[in-house]
C-alpha cells in the first residue's frame, strides 16, 4: 500500500472510529431513522388507502412515486440538519483539541487529512441512506418497484449527502469552534438550496442563479432523470469544497 493511500485510510479509520464511539452519531441516527420509520408507515398507509382508486389508472403513480421517493425527500430535509452536526468537529474539533498538530507531525499532507475525514463522514451518511432505503425495499417482494426511478433518486440523495458533507468539512476547516462550523454549514447549504427562490417566484426558470441552486440539480434525479450536467454540478461542488478545506488546513500548518 502506498504511503499516500495508507495515510488517507488511517485518517478515515480514525475518524470512523471516533464517529462510532461518540453518542452524537448514534443519537442522530436513532432519532432520524425513527422519524423516517414513522413517516414511512404514514406514507404506506396513505398508499394502501388509495390503492383501489389508482387501480383504475394504469399509468398512475406507483409505490416508488408515493412511498419510496417521498421518503428519500424527507431524508434530504433531515440531511440539512444532520450533516452539519456530523461534520462540525471533523477539523474544528481537532484544532481546538490540539490533535490536528499530531496529524501534521505524522507527515500527513493537509489534503489527505481532509480526504480521510470526508470519506469517513461520507461512509456514515451512505449507511444512513441505506438504512432509510431499507424500509421501502423491505416490501420489494410485495409490490411493484420502478427500479430505475428509485436508483436515480438514490443516486441524487447520495450526491446531495456527499455535497453537504464536503460543505460541512470545509466549514469545519475554517471555523474556530465546532458550533460555528455547524451553523455556517447549515446556512450555506440552505442558501445553496434556495438561491434561485427569488428567480423562480419572478417566473425565471433558467440562468446562472438557477444553475447555482442545488434544488435545480437534485429534483430531476428524484424524478428519475439522470443528466451528466447534474452529476458534474455535484462533483464540482464537492471538489471545490474539499479543495478549500485542504487549502485552509495547509495554511494552519504555515501559520501555526
Amino acid at each position, binding site marked *: 500500500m502506498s*504511503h499516500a493511500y*495508507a*495515510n488517507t*485510510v*488511517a*485518517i478515515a*479509520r*480514525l475518524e470512523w*472510529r*471516533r464517529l462510532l*464511539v*461518540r453518542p452524537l452519531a448514534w443519537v442522530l441516527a436513532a432519532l432520524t431513522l425513527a422519524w423516517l420509520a414513522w413517516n414511512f408507515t404514514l406514507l404506506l398507509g396513505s398508499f394502501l388507502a388509495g390503492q383501489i382508486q389508482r387501480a383504475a389508472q394504469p399509468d398512475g403513480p406507483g409505490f416508488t412515486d408515493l412511498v419510496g421517493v417521498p421518503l428519500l425527500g424527507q431524508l434530504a430535509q433531515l440531511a440539512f440538519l444532520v450533516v452539519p452536526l456530523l461534520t462540525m468537529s471533523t477539523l474544528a474539533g481537532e484544532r481546538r*483539541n*490540539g*490533535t490536528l*498538530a*499530531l*496529524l*501534521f*507531525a*505524522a*507527515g*500527513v*499532507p493537509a489534503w489527505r487529512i481532509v480526504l480521510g475525514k470526508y470519506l469517513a463522514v461520507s461512509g456514515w451518511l451512505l449507511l444512513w441512506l441505506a438504512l432509510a432505503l431499507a424500509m421501502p425495499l423491505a416490501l420489494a417482494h410485495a409490490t411493484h418497484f420502478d427500479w430505475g426511478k428509485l436508483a436515480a433518486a438514490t443516486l441524487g440523495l447520495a450526491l446531495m449527502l456527499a455535497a453537504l458533507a464536503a460543505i460541512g468539512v470545509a466549514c469545519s476547516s475554517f471555523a474556530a469552534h465546532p458550533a460555528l462550523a455547524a451553523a455556517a454549514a447549515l446556512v450555506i447549504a440552505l442558501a445553496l438550496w434556495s438561491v434561485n427562490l427569488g428567480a423562480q417566484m419572478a417566473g425565471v426558470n433558467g440562468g446562472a442563479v438557477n444553475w447555482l441552486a442545488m434544488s435545480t440539480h437534485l429534483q430531476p434525479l428524484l424524478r428519475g432523470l439522470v443528466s451528466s450536467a447534474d452529476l458534474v454540478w455535484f462533483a464540482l461542488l464537492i471538489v471545490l469544497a474539499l479543495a478549500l478545506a485542504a487549502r485552509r488546513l495547509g495554511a494552519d*500548518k*504555515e501559520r*501555526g
Partner: protein
Amino acid sequence: MTSPPADSSPTVLRLHRLSRRRAGRVAVQELSLDLQRGQVLGLLGLNGAGKSTTLSMIAGALRPDSGGIELNGEDFLEQPELARTQIGWLPERAPVWAELSVEEHLDAHGRLRGLNGATLRQARIAIIERLELQPLARRLAGVLSQGQRQRLGLACALLHRPALLVLDEPANALDPVQVAALRALIREQAAAGTAVILSTHLLAEVTAVCDRVAILHEGTLRHDGPVSAGDHAALEKTFFAIAMNGVARAA
C-alpha cells in the same frame, strides 16, 4: 555563545538558521544546531523563549519562515513525510482524542506511522508493557489524569521506534516515581541510538538525563554545550546569567 562538543556519531538532526514569527513577534531566530545519534539534548529557556515553537518545527507540525531542517541528511522541509517514520513527538500537554481508549490511540498512531497488522500489534503490546500502561489499556483517554495522558503521549511517540524523539516538557504532571522512570526511559532510548531533544523548565531534569544543553532566550540560541550530572551549579549559573541579562535589558 559556547560551542557544542565535537561528536563522531552520525548527525540525525541539523537545524540551519531556523526562524519563525508567531503572533506578530519573533519566536525563533536564526537557530542552528546539530544533534547526533544517541545524544540527548536539553532545551532550556524561560516561558516564551521559543522552545515549543522550535520543537513544533522539528516535529513537522509547524513550517519555519526561513532556514532549513535536515533529518538523517535529507531535507525535511522538502520531504515532510519523513516525519512519519523517523520522528516521535510528545507535544506540550499531550493532546488526545478523548473518545478513544489507550489501545485505540496506539493503533491510530501506529497506522499513521505506517505500522499495521502483526507489526502494529506487537509494537502496541511492547510499548504498553514498557510504560506500564496495562491497567489503562481499555480506558478512554478523556478520563485519564494529566500524568496518565503524558504517559500515553510518550507511548504514542515511541511506538514506531523513531530515530529522533522530540519531547516537549515530558515530565509535566508526572509524580516523582514516574519522573525517575521517564529519565530511565530517555537514557534507554539514547543507548539504543535514538537522538532525543527535550524541552524543560527544570535544570535538574537536564543534568539528570542530557548530554548537552542548549539555552534559548528570546528566540535565539545563547548557549550550547555539554552537561553532566555534576554540573547543576554551573548550569544554574549559566542559565540565570542568560535569563537575568535578558530581564535586565528588558527593564
